[in-house]
């Protein structure tokens, strides 16, 4: 979905933005009637609103219906400060942005924490917030009813004509917003947002500080909307609560973003320009009503024939980027030279879990579990289905906190840490059913882990690191395709590559061999051994017995949430209680 960050392309796009900005800046001096400056101001305004909305809602997937609240907050801040307190107009703009940010950050801090508020519920909360703010504005001395009148406020003198000031302010803000969207798109922050968009839980466990990033994106989005509101207040010169605090503004920006192309950072800007231009095309008085119908028809036609938006149609890809061979891909022999380390299995513990409990609605998944994981070992975690293995992995990786007990890792109790901090600390995991970021390419998926895991690399370094792990797992031929194009084996290896790219001290593998063919299992076993030899401790949940016996130094067997056996594999598997646990009492 989001293209690779190629330095040449980045520079080219950046140059294009600045060039466009410079070109537009000359328009007031070309002698065109000032009406066009006003018209372009409106295009700039909607560019700011649509692009800023996209930074939160398009990038991270948190669909907000509340943009009107922040736009209106900015409008009223400027209106009240400028007309009642005689603050010079330009000074009110930072205040407008500031008020909007405070509101947005407060709402975000309250709402983003709550796990269940995603998707349309988030949209609902933001819409409700808009109505609440609007009512407060209307019923307090902020407005109180009559509206706020700004005719007495001096318009700064920028540019040749009376309206040029708005043109330049609008242009400056629009440029700033587009550059912000562009910059975020190509940054680590942006990558984190895209990850949140695709799978927030996985992103958090991988090390993306999701709460912080969401609030940051929301704050950026709100501040830009607030600043736009401040400028618009003076443009209108008479501010009423009326239509501002409603669903109109967010609905319009959604339409603009979709029309322009949601996948592109320039999409909202294009959509804003097209829709504003269309609005003006049909204002002739004789056929106003028919004109509106034509406007509607044009919108429909555009989206029917350009389903990815205007920019999507413009940048139609002709061929898939990677000329990947079809069918089963024969993986080349491992490129990574094994560091045959003589590191023997130590008895030094890396993670000590004591008395860990977790219950789900009354079902005790883990009922007081004591497990010690030693540095440098491959530990097998076994047990029949429902014994608590996946729950243990989820607890250690921070998916959810335990109900009781402690898990000491590197001197810290993981039970009290947030998931992304656990990842930073050097713990990684794979998922039994692979959960790659569907909207990112394979290479980007691995780079994400390098960026946000304990390695904490910059974007460029992460890309290079990603290449290393793609080679190690043999996924290099598929690096520029999307996860949907991979088969199960490749997806499992992608999970592995992702986990390893975080440079973990401890990696938890959740049934990584399930669903693989015998040949593939052999390759995976070699890979896992190589991982341990590289210095990483491996905990390994599995049912495939020959792999368990071949790989593990020790195993721990769980049943009904309790540890029932621990020791060397061949030994433990023969014990009667273990056999009973797996096969039932008739087989002891």
């Amino acid at each position, binding site marked *: 979905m989001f293209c690779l960050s190629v330095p040449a392309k980045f520079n080219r796009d950046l140059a294009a933005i600045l060039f466009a900005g410079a070109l537009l800046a000359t328009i007031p001096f070309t002698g065109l*009637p*000032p*009406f*066009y400056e*006003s*018209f372009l101001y*409106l295009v700039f305004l909607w560019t700011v609103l649509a692009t800023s909305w996209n930074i939160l809602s398009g990038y991270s997937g948190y669909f907000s219906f509340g943009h009107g609240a922040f736009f209106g907050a900015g409008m009223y801040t400027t209106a009240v400060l400028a007309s009642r307190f005689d603050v010079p107009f330009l000074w009110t703009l930072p205040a407008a942005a500031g008020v909007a940010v405070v509101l947005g950050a407060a709402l975000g801090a309250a709402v983003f924490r709550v796990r269940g508020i995603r998707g349309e519920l988030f949209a609902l909360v933001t819409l409700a917030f808009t109505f609440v703010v609007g*009512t407060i504005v*209307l019923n307090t001395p902020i407005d109180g*009813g*009559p*509206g706020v*009148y700004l*005719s*007495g406020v001096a318009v700064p003198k920028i540019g040749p004509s*009376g*309206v040029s000031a708005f043109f330049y302010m609008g242009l400056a803000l629009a440029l700033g917003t587009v550059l912000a969207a562009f910059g975020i798109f190509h940054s680590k922050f942006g990558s984190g947002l895209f990850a949140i968009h695709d799978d927030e839980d996985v992103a958090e466990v991988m090390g993306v500080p999701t709460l912080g990033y969401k609030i940051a994106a929301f704050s950026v989005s709100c501040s830009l909307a607030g600043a736009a509101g401040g400028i*618009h207040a003076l*443009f*209108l*010169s*008479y501010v*009423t*609560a*009326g239509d501002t605090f409603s669903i109109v503004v967010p609905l319009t920006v959604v339409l603009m973003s979709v029309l322009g192309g949601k996948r592109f950072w320039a999409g909202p800007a294009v959509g804003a320009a097209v829709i504003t*231009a*269309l*609005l*003006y*095309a*049909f*204002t*002739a*008085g004789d056929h*106003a*009503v028919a*004109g*509106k119908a034509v406007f509607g028809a044009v919108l429909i036609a555009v989206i029917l024939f350009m389903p990815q938006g205007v920019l999507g*149609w*413009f940048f*139609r890809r002709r061929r898939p980027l990677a000329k990947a061979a079809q069918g089963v891909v024969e993986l080349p022999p491992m490129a990574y030279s094994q560091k045959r380390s003589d590191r023997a299995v130590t008895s030094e513990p890396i993670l000590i879990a004591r008395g860990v409990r977790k219950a789900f609605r009354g079902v005790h998944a883990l009922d007081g579990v004591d497990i010690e994981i030693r540095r440098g070992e491959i530990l097998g975690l076994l047990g029949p289905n429902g014994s608590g293995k996946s729950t243990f992995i989820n607890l250690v990786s921070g998916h959810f906190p335990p109900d009781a007990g402690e898990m000491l890792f590197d001197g810290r109790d993981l039970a009290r840490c947030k998931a992304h901090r656990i990842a930073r600390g050097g713990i990684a995991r794979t998922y039994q059913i692979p959960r790659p970021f569907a909207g990112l390419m394979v290479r980007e998926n691995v780079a994400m882990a390098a960026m946000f895991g304990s390695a904490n690399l910059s974007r460029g370094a992460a890309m290079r690191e990603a290449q290393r792990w793609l080679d190690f797992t043999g996924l290099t031929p598929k690096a520029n395709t999307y996860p949907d194009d991979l088969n199960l084996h490749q997806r499992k290896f992608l999970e592995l590559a992702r986990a390893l790219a975080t440079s973990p001290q401890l990696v938890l593998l959740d049934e990584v061999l399930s669903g693989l063919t015998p040949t593939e299992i052999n390759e995976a076993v070699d890979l896992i051994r190589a991982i341990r030899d590289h210095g990483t401790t491996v905990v390994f949940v599995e049912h495939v017995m020959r792999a368990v016996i071949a790989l593990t130094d020790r195993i721990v067997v769980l049943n009904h949430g309790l540890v029932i056996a621990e020791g060397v594999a061949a030994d433990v598997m023969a014990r009667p209680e273990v056999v009973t646990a797996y096969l039932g009492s008739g087989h002891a």
Partner: protein
Amino acid sequence: MNGFVRRFAVCIILLAGVFTIGAAPGDPPIRIGSTLALTGPLASTALVHKLTGEIYVEGLNRRGGLLGRQVEWIVKDDQSKPELARTLYEQLITVDKVDLLLGPYATGAILSAMGVAQRYNKLLVHHTFGIPSLAKYDAQFPTWSLGPDPATTFPNTVLDALASTPKPPKTIAIVTSKFPSVHFMSLGAREIARKRGLQEILFLEWEFGNRDFGAIAARIKDANPDFLWVGAIGLEGNQLLDALKKIDYTPRYHFYMYPAPGPMAQAPEAKNALAGTIFEQDPPFTDNPSAAEFSKIFNERATKAGLPYSRVETQAAASYTAWQVLEAAVTATKSLDDKVLAEWLRTHRVDTIQGKLRFDGPSNYGDDLMRVKQVQNGRWVTVWPKAFAAPGATLATP
């Protein structure tokens, strides 16, 4: 690369086409430009203004036009949005290069247009501005004759009308929308009622756009005032009356600030509703020949256009007056220079279907010419002051 260039060219051509749609070629006739809310929430009343303008311009051209030239009226659709009105007025002035401006419909749009007119030093005669204290430009001229302080003068007029009845009201309930042009009038009414010794037994405000009037109606019925002042605009009055009807309550005296004329006149539960007006289609207003003729044509056109209420009332009259004012100024000064016209208007009186208008008061407002009208037998009838009441009409009392 070819495909890219081709698509880019297509886009440029389309955009260029969009821009040329708006521009109009230059012509010898005198061009008067304005916008109206031809679509959007304000469209219902803007229709009246469009009809009025068309009728006036036709008549004007038949009489020889202005300064011997035909007149062309360029009207654009501001879609009920003030920000669109503002840019369209800029387009009218700087792209279409019209000779004269006329105001758009309703306070919000007029404020926007006023700002533009001020920047380009153009004269602005407007017909539906509701908040005189906000009209700060010296070359704007109102024909909705509220006078400079309507929040004081008009409630007095209304209460005078009620005081003239055999049983004047002693208690008053004021319920109002928070719509700007209505809200400040209701607050003024509150003041005046207090000064005149009426007892206020209920004061409620609702936000404009409220759909559910059940609770408000219940509270009004509970209070049971002698006089109900409703700060309503558009349909709000009808919505309230609907809600009152549903709980079996008919207010004794009831007044509505700016009701949509058609629905209020024709709803059975709106019997005896009072409102303000500067003109109704009855003598003595129609004693003026041009008023009578305008009324006849308007009735025909309105009926043909499908308007439920086809009589001339305040809205159409205010609009017609604006055109009259413009024509008078241009004819008297033989000039299209905005400064000259503005100066003339400030120092002269103009004969219109409303009466003789002057513009020498604060914010160029003259006298408060608002009368009181009442719904009687499905039509609006002026009832106060007696000098302006329709023949034989008196304020019907419950």
